[in-house]
C-alpha cells in the first residue's frame, strides 16, 4: 500500500498476576479491535489435543457409548506439544486417517468393578502412549496434596469399561473441547475522578450511603481523613450506580467515570491444557501467522487464488 497515514502503534503489556492456570495483565496503547482479536484467538484458535475418536470394546456401564465418548472428549489433556503437532487432516505420514505418531496420541482405558464398592472411573485411568500428552491433573483446593481425576463414569459390581481412544490436535472453533480457555475476558480500565469540592459538601452519613450504593467495593472512606477515596477502580463494573445515586442526592457531577479506550485489563484462565501464560503467547503467535498469511500473499501470484478480491485490494487494485 502506498503512503497514507500509519496507524501503527506499539502496545505495552504489564503482567499483574501469573499462576499456572491464570494470568491477569494490562494491555495498553492499543485499540479494542486488537484486544478483542487476542481474546477471540485465545478462545477459538489456539490448538490443543483432545480425544476425538473412541473405539469401545466393552461397555456394560449405565452410560451409553456416545455419552462416554463425549465425556472423554471434554477431558483436557496437556497440550504443550500441540503447537508443533500436525492436524490429522493435513498429515502426510498417515494419509489423513489420523492414526500416526505425528498427529495423534493413543489412549487405553480398562476398568472393571470387582467389589461391592462403586468404582469411579476417572481421567487417571486413561493410559497414554505419549507421556507428554496426559489428562490434566488437578487437586482439591481444600486438600492440595491429593490429585483427583475427572470422573468419567461410575461402575457397580460386575460392570466393565474397556476402550481405545485417539487424541488429535484441534482448535476451539471446531469443537469447544479443543479450546484451552476456560475464561478469557477483558475490561476497559476505568478512570475515576472524584469532584473533591462537591464531595466535601457531603456529610459523613451521606458519604457512607453513597459508597454503599456501588454494588462493588470501588470507593471507601479513609479512616483518618474521613475522605472518600477510590480503593479499587477495577472493581467498577460500569454499572452507573454511583452516578445515579449522586444525581438522586442532588449532587450531579460528584464523580466522573470514563473508560480509557486504549487500556485493557485481561483475565485469562486456562483449562489446564496449557499454562495460561503460554496460552497468551500462543495466541499472539497465531495472530501473527494470520497476519503473515495476508502480508505474504500481498505480492504473490497465488494471492488471487487464496484471497481473491482481498488480495487485489491489498495491492491497491
Amino acid at each position: 500500500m502506498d503512503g497514507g497515514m500509519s496507524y501503527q502503534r506499539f502496545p505495552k503489556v504489564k503482567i499483574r498476576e501469573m499462576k499456572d492456570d491464570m494470568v491477569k495483565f494490562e494491555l495498553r496503547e492499543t485499540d479494542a479491535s486488537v484486544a478483542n482479536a487476542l481474546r477471540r484467538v485465545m478462545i477459538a484458535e489456539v490448538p490443543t489435543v483432545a480425544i476425538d475418536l473412541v473405539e469401545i470394546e466393552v461397555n456394560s456401564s449405565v452410560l451409553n457409548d456416545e455419552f462416554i465418548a463425549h465425556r472423554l472428549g471434554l477431558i483436557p489433556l496437556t497440550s504443550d506439544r500441540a503447537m508443533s503437532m500436525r492436524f490429522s487432516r493435513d498429515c502426510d505420514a498417515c494419509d489423513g486417517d489420523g492414526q500416526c505418531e505425528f498427529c495423534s496420541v493413543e489412549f487405553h482405558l480398562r476398568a472393571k468393578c470387582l467389589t461391592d464398592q462403586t468404582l469411579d472411573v476417572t481421567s487417571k485411568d486413561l493410559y497414554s502412549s505419549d507421556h507428554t500428552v496426559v489428562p490434566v491433573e488437578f487437586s482439591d483446593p481444600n486438600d492440595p496434596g491429593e490429585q483427583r481425576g475427572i470422573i468419567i463414569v461410575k461402575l457397580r459390581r460386575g460392570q466393565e469399561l474397556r476402550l481405545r481412544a485417539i487424541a488429535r490436535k484441534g482448535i476451539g472453533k471446531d469443537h469447544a473441547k479443543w479450546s484451552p480457555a476456560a475464561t478469557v475476558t477483558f475490561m476497559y480500565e476505568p478512570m475515576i475522578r472524584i469532584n473533591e469540592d462537591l464531595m466535601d459538601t457531603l456529610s459523613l452519613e451521606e458519604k457512607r450511603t453513597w459508597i454503599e450504593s456501588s454494588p462493588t467495593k470501588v470507593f471507601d472512606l479513609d479512616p483518618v481523613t474521613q475522605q472518600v477515596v477510590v480503593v479499587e477502580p477495577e472493581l467498577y463494573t460500569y454499572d452507573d450506580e454511583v452516578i445515579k445515586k449522586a444525581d438522586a442526592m442532588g449532587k450531579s457531577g460528584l464523580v466522573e467515570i470514563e473508560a480509557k479506550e486504549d487500556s485493557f485489563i485481561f483475565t485469562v484462565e486456562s483449562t489446564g491444557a496449557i499454562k495460561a501464560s503460554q496460552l497468551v503467547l500462543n495466541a499472539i503467535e497465531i495472530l501473527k501467522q494470520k497476519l503473515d498469511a495476508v502480508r505474504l500473499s500481498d505480492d504473490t501470484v497465488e494471492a488471487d487464488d487464496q484471497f481473491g478480491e482481498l488480495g487485489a485490494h491489498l495491492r491497491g487494485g
Partner: protein
Amino acid sequence: MGKQAMGNIAYNQLRRMDTLLYLLVYPQRPLLTTKTIELVGYDKLGAGQNATVAVMSYSGYDIADAIVMNKSSLDRGFGRCIVMKRYSVVLQKYENDTQDRILRLDRKGYGAKHMRILDDDGMASPWEIISPQDIYINKQSPAFTRGTRVPPSELPNIRYKSSKQTFKGPEGEYCVVDRVALYNDRHNNISIKFLIRHTRRPEVGDKFSSRHGQKGVCGTIIQQEDFPFSERGICPDLIMNPHGFPSRMTVGKMIELLGGKAGVSCGRFHYGSAFGEPSGHADTVEAMSEILVNKGFSYIGKDFLYSGITGCPLQAYIFMGPIYYQKLKHMVLDKMHARADGPRVLLTRQPTEGRARNGGLRVGEMERDCLIAYGASMLIFERLMISSDPFEVQVCRICGLLGYYNHHLKTGICSSCKKRDGMSTMKLPYACKLLIQELQSMNIVPRLKLAEA
C-alpha cells in the same frame, strides 16, 4: 416438566421398552424452584437445564420467538438428548398351522451389505450401528396362510416369502441398536422388540421452552467468541429477544432470572413463587436483589456486556442470568421434508400428502388466492396442473364428450358419435377428468365447449 419436555422420566428409564422415549443427556435440577416442585419430587428427575440467558437482540435470527444458541455450550452438552425408538416384530401363527420364521442370514450375495448388523440368529445384535435400509430382522412368512392345514412335518416344504424388516431412520445419522428383547404376546406369538437409540445435539429448528410457556425454536447457532461477554467472563448459553416479554407479561420468567442469578451467586436454591408473603416460602424480589448487590451485581439483574465481535461495550445493560430451559420433543430432524418428485395417489394421480408418504406440499386455496391476486397465471398453471396431475384427453368438438385415442389408427375417436374427425387433444387435470366421469355415472352430462385459443 410438561409432557413435551425431555428429561429423566423415571429411575428405571434405561430398562424400559417404550415405543418412543426422549431423554436428556445432562438433566439438571432447577435453580429456582417452588415448594410444590419439591413436594412432588420434580426436582429429583430433571427435565431441563439451567441456561444462562441474555435478554437482548442479536443477529436478527432471534426475531419472532427464535433463540440464538452458543455453539460451545452445545459442544459441552447443552440440550443434548437421546431418542429411543422401539421397533416390534411378531412371529405370527396362521390358521393353517403355518408360522413366520427367522432365517439365518446369507452373508453373501445380493443385499448382503444391508445385513451386516444381523447376528447368526437372524436378528440385529445389540450395540451395532444401524443405518437406513439396514435389515434388522431376517423374517420370512409362509406364502399360503389359509386353507388346508399343513402338518408340522411338512412345514419346511411349504413356500416362504421374505418379509425382512428394514430400518427407516434419518439419513446420515448415527443410530445404535440399544437392546433386543424377546417375549410372548397375548396370542402366544413370539415377539421381538428392538430399541434403537439416537443421540442428538441441538440444531437450528429444534424447539426449546422455559417454564413460563415461552417456547421458541433455535434460530441460529453462533460461536462462543462472537457471543457477548461480561468482564467477569460470563458468556450466555442462549440469547432471547426482549420482544417476548411485553405482550406475554411473563413476569415470572424475570423473577426466575433474578432468583436464579442470586441462587448461583450465593449457592442456595431459591423459591420463586409469585408472592413472597411472610407466610409463604418464596423469596421476595427485594431479598434476591439484595443478594445480587452483595455479590457485586446490579440489583436489577442487568450486566455490562462487551460485544464479542468488536470488543466494544454494548449500548445497553443486558438482563442476564440463569433460566431453566427445557428441550421439547419437536425436533426438525423428525419433521423436515422436501420433495421434487415422488409417489402419487392412484385414484386422482395427484401427489401424496404427508411426510410419511414422501408427499408434496399443497398449494392451498389461500395460496392460490394470493397468486390470482398477483396475477401470476403461469405459476398457478404450473402448480395446479403441470406439477400436479396433468392428463391428456381427446375431446369431441361435436358432442363435447371425452373420447379415446386409438393407437392403431393414431387418431382420437369419439365413442358416442363413433366418429374420428372433430376430435381435439387437450390437457386438463386428471381430477377434472375424474369429475366429468363421476358426473356421467350419476346421469349428468358435462359437455366441453371448445373455443380457439
